């Protein structure tokens, strides 16, 4: 399994959101940071959708949809199996 550009972009955006999450926990009144957080959150949802159409569900318990013809959760590679 090859490392995809969408996954790289997903990791970048999610990293920004992790950073903003910690920052906002300490500075919850910073409206500019909240705006950035929501902006990146939109971008994250867009990228996740794009990734999942090609590579299968990212999340369990209904947080991702499964392709109708197969339960892809069992057949897509696990993170430690990907050749980055």
């Amino acid at each position, binding site marked *: 399994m090859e*490392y995809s550009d969408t*996954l*790289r972009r*997903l*990791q970048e955006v*999610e*990293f920004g959101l*992790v*950073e903003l*999450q*910690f*920052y906002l*926990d*300490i500075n*919850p009144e910073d409206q500019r940071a909240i705006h950035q957080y929501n902006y990146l959150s939109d971008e994250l949802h867009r990228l996740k959708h794009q990734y999942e159409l090609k590579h299968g*569900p*990212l*999340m*369990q*318990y209904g*947080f991702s949809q499964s392709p109708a013809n197969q339960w892809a*959760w069992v057949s*897509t590679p*696990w*993170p*430690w199996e*990907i*050749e*980055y």
Partner: protein
Amino acid sequence: MWIYEKKLEIPVRVSKPDLQMAKFLITQYGGPDGELSAALRYLNQRYSMPNERAKALLTDIGTEELGHLEVIATLVHKLVKDATPEQMRAAGLGSHYADHDKALFYVDANGVPWTAAYIQAKGDPIADLCEDIAAEEKARATYQWLINLTDDPDVIQVLTYLREREVVHSQRFREALYIVEEFNNTKRIF
């Protein structure tokens, strides 16, 4: 509730199998200053943390530490997956092979199993946040010692990233400690 996401926080690559490095790295999986200790320490301290910002921070950093646990696991797995028993024995992993084959286990670099005695929860916000800052500094130092033990540029890249995350965690915990101390001071004045 936690929801698993089927991806790593960062890409993890190794240039070559390295059993000795895997033996050292496992300490960040199940050692005293490792990612398991970190995640369990923070997530457990939340219930008695009185400060709202610190409570959120413990939840969010504790969750990222679980992601780092998976990064370390992937590194170790990739470093050992193609090894033979003879090679494991030669690298000092013969006793690991006897007990676990190539399975990961929560042990430190000497094979000592993880214990809850590695972590603390005092129920006092200042004591607990000081413990968390110290834990982050110990994790940061461990990543530096691990970087000093390898010449694999791919492994160094991952370890450098994890070291920098500990710097950020420490900084945020220091800010939380400052907020808690400020609150205590104003309480005393009024």
